[in-house]
């Protein structure tokens, strides 16, 4: 899902950079210093996840983990993902410096959207929380693929065609990430529920009884 240099048109690059900048500013503002370590860990996980590849047909795709990053960080997913993407561009030559903004938006915006859509259900009873966690992991990849298609449509033809291609290629990743997110949430609910969004000690212990 990393878009290379020279593929996108100028306006798309500028718009992407502007949205990424705004998102990062919002994320940094909302990131309390106590959670910097957590953001760093998730940034590192995101950084390494791109090395786990899923071969699909002629091309291949890799894990993204933007769903779980978004779920645990909310708006702070923007700076975390931007940092990881910058390092991926420097170390692995994935993506590029000029496309940094667009790539950040493609992966971080779905993370924030899924945080707001699925986050409120994560601490509900597990018959609601499990589908919500799966939707969060899979949905973040799906929305990312749609955004990638949207940013490519100005240079590579029709939106539906490009987005369809990207979404189809990422179907296995969606399933894997959905499952990974479900297990992460199940684990955190048992071990450290205060990391999950919307945690309220009183309510949580009340519901557990």
């Amino acid at each position, binding site marked *: *899902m990393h878009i*290379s240099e020279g593929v996108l048109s100028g306006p798309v690059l500028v718009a992407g950079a502007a949205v990424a900048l705004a998102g990062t500013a919002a994320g940094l503002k909302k990131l309390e*210093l106590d959670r910097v370590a957590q953001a760093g860990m998730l940034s590192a996980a995101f950084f390494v996840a*791109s090395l*786990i590849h899923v*071969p699909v047909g002629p091309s291949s795709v890799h894990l993204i983990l933007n769903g779980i990053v978004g779920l645990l960080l909310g708006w702070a997913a923007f700076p975390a993902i931007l940092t990881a993407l910058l390092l991926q561009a420097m170390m692995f030559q994935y993506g590029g410096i000029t496309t940094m903004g667009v790539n950040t938006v493609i992966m971080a915006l779905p993370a924030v959207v899924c945080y707001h859509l699925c986050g409120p259900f994560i601490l509900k009873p597990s018959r609601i929380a499990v589908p919500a966690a799966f939707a969060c992991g899979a949905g973040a990849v799906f929305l990312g693929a749609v955004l990638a298609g949207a940013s490519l449509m100005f240079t590579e033809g029709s939106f539906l065609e490009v987005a369809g291609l990207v979404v189809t290629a990422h179907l296995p990743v969606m399933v*894997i990430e959905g499952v990974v997110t479900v297990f992460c949430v199940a684990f955190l609910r048992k071990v450290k529920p205060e990391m999950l969004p919307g945690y309220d000690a009183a309510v949580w212990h009340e519901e557990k009884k």
Partner: protein
Amino acid sequence: MKRLLIGVALTGLCCFLTLTPAHAHKVTVFAWAEGDQVFTESKFSGGKRVKAGKVEVFDRSGNLLLEGRTDDNGAFAFKAPAIADLKIVLTAGMGHQNSWLLSAADLGKSEPASRATHASPSEPAGSETLRQTVSPSAGPELTAREIEAIVARQLEQKIKPLARMVAASQNKGPTMSDIVGGIGYIIGLVGLGAYVRYRKESRRP
């Protein structure tokens, strides 16, 4: 708890199974010339060949000279349309693109047109002396131009494996040091955050 453990093990196994040689997310294209034939090789990071990727050849001012598609081995060859700097751009779909610059100097050596132009002013003197020096052993028929062509052909044959080796080594996937280095940067940033946080705390009365 037991169910969770099994789950974690399964996901781990899933991740492990998919940890096959790295592909995609970076493409490279490499081109070299043999005479006026230009050969290109296109790969995803990790060495997987780009099948049916679009290759476009531009001149220095950005005009499209020709285009084609890579075969199953990621190769695409064409006859150089002109002795000029060529920019070879590979587009492999889903936003993957890279390019390779082939300079006129790489192309020009054994092209008759260019050789004739830059060899003609000095040719009479050069070929005369050469003819004299080689005549005892190689016969009077060999001109400087012919010798040049023979040498160029021989050199190309000797260099071909080297060019392929360079093409093969163009692309290695991310190395361990890249990965560890990246994580190190992130830990450093976290350390910076921790520093700011505790400095704020220690300033408090």
